[in-house]
């Protein structure tokens, strides 16, 4: 695998920003119990999916090729802002607490909203006129 030092730096910087933003939102919206809706994870995941759909589509289909924008925004910021592991732990804790309905609802809502966010952002970029 070819490794470019500036690309790695862009990913690290984006990852720093994404992780800090997720941590701050996590503190601001900390759930009170395992049976509460995990708003912090839900919101960062859906927002990050929308931002990634927007950014990747725009960078691939609308803007001239750039070596460092996608690693910074996609792999770094969006990858670190969103999280798979915390979501899975939250689902497991809902199941632990006997709240299977909540676990299924949370998983389904995250997937529908996350997938829908990518879809809407992608189509939005494609429909928009290219501005010089």
């Amino acid at each position, binding site marked *: 695998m070819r490794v470019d030092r500036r690309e790695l730096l862009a990913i690290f910087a984006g*990852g720093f920003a994404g992780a800090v933003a997720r*941590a701050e939102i996590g503190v601001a919206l900390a759930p009170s119990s395992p049976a509460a809706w995990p708003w912090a994870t839900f919101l960062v995941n859906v927002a*990050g999916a929308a931002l990634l759909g927007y950014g990747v589509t725009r960078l691939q289909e609308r803007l001239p090729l750039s070596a460092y924008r996608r690693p910074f925004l996609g792999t770094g910021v969006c990858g*670190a802002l969103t999280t798979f592991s915390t979501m*899975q732990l939250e689902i497991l804790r809902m199941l632990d607490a006997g709240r299977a309905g909540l676990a299924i609802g949370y998983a389904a809502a995250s997937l529908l909203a996350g997938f829908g966010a990518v879809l809407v952002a*992608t189509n939005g970029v494609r429909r928009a006129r290219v501005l010089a």
Partner: protein
Amino acid sequence: MTAPVLIGIGLLGGAGALVRFLLDGAVSERWRGSFPAGTLAVNLSGAFALGIVTGATLHGDALRLVATGLIGSYTTFSTWMLESHRLGEDGALSIAALNIALSLVAGVAAVAIGRAVA
């Protein structure tokens, strides 16, 4: 959250993103086929690691640094959704559905297994 903890989360978050990029690249390079095996490998290993960390006796700032900073950044929801969407667009609906269902079910199982062995 104190400033040093927040900076620590940022540094570990940057490191988590780098490890994700490198492992995804290494797996994708070897994997033949359109299934996004690199992201799945990252997300399942991260879910397992989070299970170990929460099962072990880590608390407070230490837990925040490792769980929120390192593992939270290492795993990704956005790429999982983007790759599933792009597979669907390319007409690979069954692979997209498999990617969503397998990640979800195996992800919860990976956390549970990590917690059990911790």
